[in-house]
C-alpha cells in the first residue's frame, strides 16, 4: 500500500490532469551521502553547511522511526523518494487545468484570483503586483534592520547568524524526522529581529506569496533579540496542491531577554480523499526557547489538513519569568489521523505556561492530544495550566488525550483539565428551528467551540480559519 502511495506521489505525472512539458531538474530517487552532497552543491552552499547536512545524515542512519504516537503510518520507503526535485515539474498553465473541486474551495474561502494561481502551482507572471509589494515590504523591514528572507539567502548573506543559531533549539539528533530534515532540507524562512525593534507588520503576506513550493523539507529559524517583537504567520488556509507525500519540517525560535514571539499556523495540506487515499504525511518538529528573562513565545495553530499529522510545537522556558502558550485546534475528518500537542519544559524560576487544546473529530478519524509538562529541579514557582477539550461528531471517530507531567520541584503548580463532548441532536434541531441548516449549524457550533483559539489568531487569518473549519467538516453530520 505504501509503495503505491509513494509511487503515485513521486512518479505521478497526472494527478490533476495536466501534462508535463517543462524541463525539470530531478536527481534520482534514494538517499545517500552523494545525494546530500548534490543537494548542497546545487544550492551553492558553503562547506560548513554541507558538514552540517552530512553530520545529520550520518546520524539519521542510526535512528529508528518513532512509533509511540497513536498513528497508523504506512511503511515509507525513504529510498524511493526524490530529495531534490525542481518544484514546478507538473505546473498547470492556467486555472482551467486545475482540479475544479480545489477551485470551488478557493472560492468558498474567498482567495483572490492571483493567489489562487500561485497556490495551484501555476507559474505566476513575474510582474504581478505581489512582487512589487514584496519589494516594498523588504525595504521597510530592512530600514529597521529586520532580516526576513529565504533560508538559502540567509546561509549566503548572514552565515554568522545561521551558524550561531541553527540547530540550537532542534539539534539534528533530536528525532528521526529532524535528522532527515537537517540532512536534506530544501528551503524555508529566516527571520532576525534586532534588539529593541518591534516588527511593524505580521510577517505573512510576503510569506503567503513566497512560500509556495518551498518543498517538502522546510526549515525556519526565527531569532528575536532583546526587547524585540514579531508576529509570524505560517501557511495558508487554502488547500495546497503538492506533489510531495512526505513533509518533515523544522521550526526553531529563539527569544532573548524581554523578547516576544507570536507564531501562528493554519495548516491545510491535502488530507486525502474521503476513502483515505492519498494525502500528506506531516511530521514536524517545532520548538522555541525562551532564552532570556521575561521572554515570551506563543504558538497558535489551526490544523485541518494532512492525512497524518505528527506535531508538537514546544517551548523551553529557560529564562527566569519567561512564559509560553500553546493554543491549538486540530480537526480530523474522514480517515485523517492527528497526534498533536506540545511540550512545556520549565527550567527558569517563576516561569509559566498555558496549554489550550481543542480537538474536533469526525468521520472515522483519530485525533489525539499528547502533551508534556516538565518542571525542572531549579524551576521555582513554575506554573502550568492545561485544558484539553475534545468534540466528537458522529460515533465512528476517536478522540484521545495523553497528558504527561514530570514535576521535580515542589513549589510548582500544575493543573490539567479535560472535557469530551458531542454535538447533540438537540443543538442541531434548535438551530434548524431557527432556520439554520444542519451544515451551517455544525459550522456555527464548531466555530463556537474553537472560538477561544481562533480569537488568538491575527484578524486576517481568523476569518479564513473560521470558514475553513466549516468547510473541513462539510457533510460530516446527518
Amino acid at each position, binding site marked *: 500500500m505504501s509503495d503505491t502511495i509513494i509511487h503515485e506521489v513521486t512518479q505521478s505525472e497526472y494527478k490533476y490532469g495536466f501534462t508535463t512539458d517543462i524541463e525539470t531538474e530531478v536527481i534520482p530517487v534514494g538517499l545517500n551521502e552523494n545525494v546530500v552532497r548534490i543537494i548542497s552543491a546545487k544550492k551553492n552552499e558553503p562547506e560548513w553547511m554541507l558538514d552540517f547536512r552530512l553530520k545529520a545524515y550520518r546520524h539519521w542512519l542510526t535512528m529508528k522511526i518513532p512509533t509511540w504516537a497513536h498513528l497508523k503510518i504506512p511503511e515509507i520507503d525513504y529510498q524511493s523518494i526524490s530529495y531534490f526535485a525542481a518544484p514546478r515539474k507538473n505546473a498547470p498553465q492556467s486555472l482551467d487545468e486545475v482540479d475544479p473541486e480545489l477551485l470551488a474551495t478557493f472560492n468558498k474561502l474567498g482567495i483572490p484570483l492571483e493567489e489562487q494561481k500561485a497556490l495551484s502551482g501555476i507559474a505566476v507572471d513575474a510582474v504581478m503586483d505581489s512582487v512589487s509589494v514584496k519589494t516594498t515590504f523588504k525595504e521597510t523591514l530592512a530600514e529597521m534592520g529586520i532580516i526576513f528572507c529565504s533560508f538559502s539567502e540567509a546561509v549566503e548573506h548572514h552565515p554568522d547568524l545561521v551558524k550561531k543559531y541553527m540547530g540550537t533549539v532542534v539539534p539534528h539528533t533530536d528525532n528521526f524526522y529532524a535528522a532527515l530534515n537537517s540532512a536534506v532540507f530544501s528551503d524555508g524562512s529566516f527571520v532576525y529581529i534586532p534588539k529593541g525593534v518591534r516588527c511593524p507588520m505580521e510577517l505573512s503576506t510576503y510569506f503567503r506569496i513566497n512560500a509556495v513550493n518551498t518543498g517538502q523539507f522546510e526549515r525556519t529559524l526565527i531569532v528575536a533579540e532583546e526587547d524585540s517583537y514579531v508576529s509570524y504567520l505560517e501557511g495558508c488556509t487554502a488547500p495546497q496542491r503538492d506533489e510531495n507525500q512526505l513533509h518533515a519540517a523544522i521550526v526553531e525560535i529563539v527569544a532573548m531577554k524581554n523578547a516576544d514571539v507570536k507564531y501562528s499556523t493554519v495548516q491545510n495540506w491535502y488530507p486525502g480523499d474521503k476513502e483515505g487515499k492519498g494525502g500528506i504525511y506531516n511530521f514536524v518538529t517545532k520548538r522555541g526557547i525562551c532564552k532570556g528573562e521575561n521572554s515570551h513565545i506563543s504558538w497558535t495553530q489551526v490544523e485541518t489538513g494532512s492525512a497524518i499529522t505528527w506535531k508538537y510545537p514546544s517551548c523551553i522556558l529557560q529564562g527566569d519569568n519567561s512564559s509560553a502558550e500553546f493554543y491549538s485546534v486540530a480537526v480530523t475528518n474522514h480517515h485523517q489521523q492527528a497526534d498533536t500537542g506540545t511540550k512545556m519544559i520549565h527550567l527558569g524560576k517563576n516561569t509559566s505556561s498555558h496549554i489550550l487544546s481543542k480537538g474536533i473529530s469526525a468521520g472515522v478519524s483519530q485525533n489525539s492530544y499528547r502533551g508534556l509538562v516538565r518542571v525542572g529541579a531549579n524551576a521555582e514557582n513554575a506554573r502550568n495550566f492545561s485544558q484539553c477539550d475534545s468534540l466528537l461528531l458522529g460515533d465512528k471517530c476517536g478522540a484521545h488525550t495523553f497528558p504527561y507531567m514530570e514535576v521535580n520541584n515542589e513549589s510548582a503548580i500544575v493543573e490539567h483539565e479535560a472535557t469530551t463532548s458531542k454535538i447533540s441532536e438537540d443543538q442541531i*434541531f434548535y438551530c434548524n*428551528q431557527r432556520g439554520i441548516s444542519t451544515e*451551517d449549524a455544525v459550522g456555527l457550533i464548531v466555530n463556537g467551540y474553537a472560538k477561544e483559539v481562533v480569537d488568538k489568531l491575527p484578524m486576517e487569518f481568523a476569518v479564513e480559519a473560521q470558514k475553513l473549519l466549516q468547510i473541513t467538516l462539510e457533510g460530516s453530520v446527518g
Partner: protein
Amino acid sequence: MLEIKNLHASINGKEILKGLNLSVQPGEIHAIMGPNGSGKSTLSSVITGNPAFEVTQGSIIFEGKDLQEMAPEERANEGIFLSFQYPVEIPGVSMVNFMRTAINEQRKYRELPPISATDFLRIMREKKALVEMDNKLTNRSVNEGFSGGEKKRNEIFQMAMLEPKLAILDETDSGLDIDALRIVANGVNKLKSPENATIVITHYQRLLEYIIPDYVHVLYDGKIVKSGGKDLAMELEARGYDWIKQEVAV
C-alpha cells in the same frame, strides 16, 4: 393557516399522537392543555419537524404547504417558531451571532439581501426592550449560564426578532416566577397581530390569565378530546383532568 388532520406520530416505535385534528386561523390564540404524557410536546415537535419523531399517518398543512415535505429549517423559514420547553445551550456562539445568522437565513429563504449592521442593531435594541432583556445576555453564548427564567425570556426575544406567522409556546410558563411570567406574556401580547397566530401549550391555567386564548383544547391520550373557549381553562383549573378522562372513557 394550520390544518392538522388525523395526525398519528410515534417516537421509538411508540405511538404518542393517535389521530389529532386542529385548525388554526390567523389572529387566533389556541391553548392546548392536558395532563402529563398526553402528547403536548410531541405535537410541537411534529409540527416543527423534529427528526426524533415519526409521522405515521395524517397531514399537517401550513398555508397550503405540506409540512411533511419540508426540512425543519424550511418550516422555520416559512414562519413557524417554537419556543422550546428546554432551550439548548450552544457554547461559544454569541446570541448576537446566532440571531444574525438566523435572520439572514430567513432573509435568504425569502430572497432578500442580508440585513445591514445598523438595522440589525436597531431591531435588537427594540426587541430586547420588549422582553426587558439585559444587554449582558445578548453578549453571552446562546443560553449558556442563563437561569431558567432567562432562557424562557430569551426564547420570546428570538420570537420577537424572527416575527413568525405561527408561534408555538411549549410550556413557556414552567419555571417562571410571577414577574418573569408577566414579562413573557406581555411580550407575546405585544407581538400579536391579525396576521399571526399562537399556540400556547401549557399545563396550568396560570399563563392564560395573561395570554387570553380564543380557544382551549384538551389533549388526552394523543387526541384532542374537548375544545372550548377560555372558560374551559378555568374549569380545568378548578376540577382537574379526571372528569375529562372519565368523559372519554364513557
